[in-house]
């Protein structure tokens, strides 16, 4: 880790700072990390069986996925990416929706009422400004809500990142910018994405608070996310968090990391696993048993299987349905086209 990187729980499971949450809460978040990992591995496996489309695993980033969301209220906004299924799920986006999306079904995007998690952004960079807009609306309407946006190191190269950061600064919106610097934008290593030492160096250029943390340290993530969320909610404006983490798996199930990296670095990061260190800590505190973890994992695995089964059981869209959500009401030309499809077939 570079200097000035907040760490609370060291890779060996020892505390090197003050935990921001109590043991019960750590257990809850640990459980969520385990579920997330099971979900993630299960999806990868199911993709190999051809039951899911391309999948972007987040293994190694579970502390970010769970910790960034931990301080949020149920109705806060979450505006995240294709790699943030863990975060979205923990924020209340149902697993079946995630899976539906991965089978290639638009109905996955239908977040339940009351939950303000947007469908994942597939394009890189464009979504961060949305979390400025939602936050701005909340500020203008004084709802007290906060908007969390999650994105990768690669996304900070896009012009839209800049405009989002700048607007958040200028309009002082309650937005939390949570960057998972996982070392790679597909095959491009961090060092080739920017000449800056660190992404957090960008914050000052937007007049924004910036903090760099050990992204594999659940407690550091929770601490930084909590401060940022509280600041935002209290009207103290946006924060940029750079979480140093690593994508230990491929970019997606279609990617072959062997083309651009060796396993050495990856192995070093595996040794800093975000789940292991919390387990070691919890075990030392007498808060962890193998049986408990097995139970969680088993339930999670079942949940994913069920979600895939549910998704597969759902009748695919009819031709008619592809016209039905372009507008509140289909326009006359769309009805005309629906007629053509009915007449001539696909």
């Amino acid at each position: 880790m570079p200097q000035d990187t907040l760490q609370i729980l060291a890779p060996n499971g020892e505390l090197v700072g003050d935990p921001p949450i109590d043991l019960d809460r750590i257990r809850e978040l640990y459980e969520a990390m385990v579920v997330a990992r099971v979900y993630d591995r299960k999806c990868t496996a199911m993709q190999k069986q051809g039951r899911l489309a391309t999948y972007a695993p987040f293994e190694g980033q579970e502390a970010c996925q769970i910790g960034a969301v931990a301080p949020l209220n149920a109705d806060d906004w979450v505006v995240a990416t294709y790699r943030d299924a863990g975060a979205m799920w923990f924020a209340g986006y149902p697993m079946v929706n995630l899976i539906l999306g991965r089978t290639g079904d638009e109905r996955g995007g239908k977040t339940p009422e009351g939950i303000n998690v947007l469908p994942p952004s597939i394009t890189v960079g464009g979504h961060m400004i949305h979390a400025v807009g939602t936050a701005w609306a909340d500020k203008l309407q004084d709802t007290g809500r906060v908007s969390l946006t999650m994105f990768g190191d690669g996304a900070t190269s896009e012009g839209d990142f800049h405009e989002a950061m700048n607007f958040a600064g200028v309009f002082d919106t309650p937005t939390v910018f949570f960057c998972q610097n996982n070392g790679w934008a597909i095959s491009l290593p961090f060092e080739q994405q920017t000449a800056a030492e660190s992404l957090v160096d960008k914050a000052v250029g937007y007049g924004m608070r910036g903090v760099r943390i050990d992204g594999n340290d659940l407690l550091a993530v929770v601490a930084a996310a909590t401060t940022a969320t509280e600041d935002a909610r209290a009207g103290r404006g946006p924060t940029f968090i750079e979480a140093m983490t690593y994508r230990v798996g491929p970019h997606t199930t279609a990617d072959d990391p062997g083309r651009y990296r060796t396993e050495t670095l990856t192995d070093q990061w595996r040794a800093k696993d975000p789940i292991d260190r919390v387990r070691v800590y919890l075990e030392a505190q007498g808060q962890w048993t193998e049986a408990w973890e097995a139970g969680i994992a088993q339930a999670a695995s079942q949940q994913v299987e069920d979600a895939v089964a549910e998704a597969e059981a759902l009748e695919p869209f009819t031709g008619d349905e592809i016209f039905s959500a372009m507008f509140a009401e289909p326009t006359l030309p769309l009805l005309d086209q629906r007629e053509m499809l009915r007449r001539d077939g696909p």
Partner: protein
Amino acid sequence: MTERTMAQALNAALSDALADPSVVLLGEDVGMTGGVFRVTDGLRETFGGDRVIDTPVAESGIIGAAFGMAVAGMRPIAELQFMGFSYPGYDQIVNHVSRIRNRSRHRFTAPLVIRIPYGGGIGAAEHHSESFETIYTHVPGLKVVVPSRPIDAKGLLASAIADPDPVIFLEPIRAYRAIKEDVPDAPYLTPIGVASIERTGSDVTLIAYGAMMKETRQAAELLGANGVDAEVIDLRTLVPLDVETIVASVQNTGRAVVIHEAPRTTGFGAEIAALIGEKALYSLKAPVERVTGWDVVVPLRRAEKHYTPGVDRIVNATMRTMES
């Protein structure tokens, strides 16, 4: 009723809309200066800087932020200064604004209006004379509205703001102050998706929209004086298009000329001509004529006249259809 220019009629519609606290207006220089074309004149004074918001120079940011606000339940109206400056925001429009309803199966929506001054004819600098409506009409999930006169401008903008879906609202620059007409003072809605038959006629149908309505109306007068009875349709909405009105008219006249200042290739005239060919082929007495801008960069002031279709070009094209 008050006599108003289009700019004033739009200002009135915006002022009416801002009575609803969920409506905000944002863009470059919309507040303190009242916008490049003064369409938002006085609104900041009345509604405050939190509702009529001067933003940094960042079109993608303006649209992306407005999108987020819309998703969160507001009714933002984003102004871009010229169509030539709208392209940095194109990704936000195509990949997010137009799609969130479908992506979320109606759970999240973007009831947002993007106002874009467009078109040439004022001898402006490069990028200030664009008519690229096609790049918006081609995008599924957007409505595209183009008023040609004050009375429609007010009612259509009110409808656009009330619409549950995103509307690209194109404002013809050279029509902003070209004419004044009586515009009702109370708010009213002019429906989106309904063309207006501005003049009935039996020989040929002239189809246009936006700024080109001026030359089209003039051409129709001239043709009338020469014994050619032209029907004139102001489309007013490009998407969703009022196909029925167009087709019915051409079935009646048997001839059509479509006029726009956008470049020719895959301009909106291609769509109209194709539709007429599909739905009224057997009524056609002559090929549909397209009178359009050319596939060139709009020339600067000293040569712009060669680009924008003038009355002569419309008349000549129409006379050619009459010869068949």
